[in-house]
């Protein structure tokens, strides 16, 4: 790294000793990172092209892009409505028009490339129906849920953390107490937090009781058993757990802004809002990039909450990418397929952080 050091006299031998020590000192870290980071990363890509099993009889076989076909394969198929001999639309017992089912449609497909229905819609005159067929419907639900989670958590958590940081940074009496208490969930493990909130989210749990005592005529909700409320419940809990972490990051950013800038703005007659937009916010640019990227990456990796609280349910409403990779790769022992999901996850993380980096850099 540094080559500016003047060479010492007769340094040949000592230079060799220096190089030897340097290699010896980096070796343990390099070796461990090679075995437990570089090789697993390469292995993720390699295994994703095989049918590797966790407990394998024999070596994994190369299967080409089959895992990715199953994972990412999408097909749109349109079928005509069933008609009787006279050409009239056939109707079932419920009076609805009858169409060939998605299962019939896929009956003759290659077993590996067989797809199942993710969604369907009828044409206006009911003469045909269009199926959206995918190889792995759970993957697409997981992808959608993961995106929903990220889209809500990133701005809300970052914004709330900033608000909390500004509040604590007022440095009035009590500030330290507030900071400490807000930070406590961060040092609490996610497993503990998940179990505690699962208890509070129960139908006869604390949250319903509190809401009932505040809102007259409140109807109890079974938060985690309802597909509409399960993911939002996990979102609220996850923000509660992690917001203190990013509050501290914002706080350390706030403290790098020189006090004279605020003095100058005050002398110029700038109000609180103006001081925030013209002094505080520009001074937090680097912090903002860091906060956004770290929350995004953490949110994309959503796993523990799902594993402890919902196992992906109800009705796959809380399936996520990492949970799906875990269920496929470990639960069902399909290491090859699980690795393919992990590779897709990796590409996603990489793309999003590169985009964010680019977007935030251009404004400079």
């Amino acid at each position, binding site marked *: *790294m*540094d080559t500016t050091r003047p060479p010492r006299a007769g340094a040949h031998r000592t230079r060799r000793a*220096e*190089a*030897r*020590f*340097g290699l010896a*000192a*980096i070796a*343990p*870290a*390099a070796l*461990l*990172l090679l075995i*437990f*980071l*570089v*090789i*697993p*990363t390469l*292995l*993720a890509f390699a295994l994703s092209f095989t049918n590797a099993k966790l407990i394998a009889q024999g070596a994994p076989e190369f299967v080409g892009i089959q895992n990715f076909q199953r994972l990412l394969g999408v097909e749109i198929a349109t079928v005509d409505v069933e008609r009787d001999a006279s050409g009239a639309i056939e109707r079932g017992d419920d009076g609805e028009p009858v169409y060939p089912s998605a299962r019939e449609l896929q009956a003759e497909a290659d077993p590996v490339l067989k797809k199942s229905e993710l969604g369907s819609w009828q044409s206006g005159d009911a003469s045909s129906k269009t199926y959206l067929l995918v190889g792995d419907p759970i993957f697409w639900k997981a992808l959608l849920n993961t995106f929903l989670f990220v889209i809500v958590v990133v701005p809300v958590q970052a914004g709330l953390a900033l608000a909390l940081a500004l*509040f604590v940074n007022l440095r*009035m009496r*009590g500030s330290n107490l*507030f900071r400490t*208490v807000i930070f*406590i969930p961060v*040092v*609490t*493990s*996610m*497993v*503990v937090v998940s179990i*505690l909130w699962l*208890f509070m989210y129960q139908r006869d749990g*604390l949250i319903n009781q509190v809401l009932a005592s505040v809102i007259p005529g409140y109807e109890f909700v079974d938060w985690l058993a309802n597909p509409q409320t399960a993911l939002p419940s996990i979102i609220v809990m996850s923000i*509660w757990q992690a917001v203190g972490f990013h509050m*501290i*990051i914002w706080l*350390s*950013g706030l403290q790098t802004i020189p006090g004279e800038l605020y003095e100058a703005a005050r002398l110029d007659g700038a109000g609180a809002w103006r001081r925030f937009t013209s002094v505080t916010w520009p001074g937090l640019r680097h*912090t903002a*990039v*860091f*906060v956004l990227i*770290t929350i995004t*990456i953490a949110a994309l*990796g959503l796993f523990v909450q799902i*594993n*402890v609280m919902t196992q992906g349910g109800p009705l796959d409403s809380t399936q996520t990418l990492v949970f799906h*990779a*875990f269920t496929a*790769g470990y639960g069902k022992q399909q*290491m090859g397929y699980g690795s393919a999901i*992990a590779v897709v*996850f*990796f590409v996603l*993380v*990489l793309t999003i952080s590169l985009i964010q980096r680019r977007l935030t850099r251009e404004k400079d």
Partner: protein
Amino acid sequence: MTLRPLGALHRRLWLPVVYWAVGALLLMAFSFPMVFMAVSSLKPDDQIFLDLKTMNAFLPTGDVSLDNYVGVFARVPVAQFLLNSAFTSALVVGLGLVVNSLAGFALTRVRWRGQTVVLGLLIATLIVPFETIAIPMVFLVSRLPWFSIDSAGLQFQEGLMNTYAVQILPFVANAFSIFLFAQYFKSIPRELDEAAMVDGASWWRVYRTIVMPLAGPVVATAAILTFLPVWNAYLWPIMTVQKEDLRPIQVGLQYFFQENVEWGQIMAYTTIITLPVLVMFLLFQRAFVASIASSGVKG
């Protein structure tokens, strides 16, 4: 705007009110769930549910006892789980401090060929999320050669599954920790090394007696940043450790939770494993906060 003095007076009166109202709300939102957990661990289940309807949910009222704790210890070997987690965390932190500080030292204060390449590779490893490599790594560690020492002497085995090693080795080297050390070492004047070398000190001695004693703050930061993920580890041990006597504390909680519906006992278990970290946090709050803040500096 025309009544400026009055406006200022107004502001002085209501600002503290708003401040304390917001503060009280925050205190409630962030502390009440934890208080509820601790308080419930002292009550029998029917008392917990009875108290949910009133503020008693957050107060140690009624039939308070340590029965739930006794129950937890009677049902599962929590002490063993705690010991397992303490042991793996201590080794990850301890070995990590040595391995990562040595690497940081090698990258900033020693010259050798290939330094820039290694540094570049190290930066590249920072972008790989653990979730990506967890599954292939299970595949890898289940096939790595390993050894064990038992009554029959040294034994070789295939696979690290169900060992302490599998919970420790993957987390010892840490690229982020290496950067923290490297950054800090750069700020220590190099003349110190040279003076010691002139006096005949070896590189190892320079590292041990000159550079490391000055690295106190970064040692604390690196220790905290590596301790928390290991103490709270979950995804990795659920896949690699099935034996009960090697089980870490968080996985133990999940098993306990799955086969138990007595909420008082579950809350006792969560309190037991949260308390050590909480006490440490409150004691070393400054270091905790500094370590988190330092993770944002590079951004």
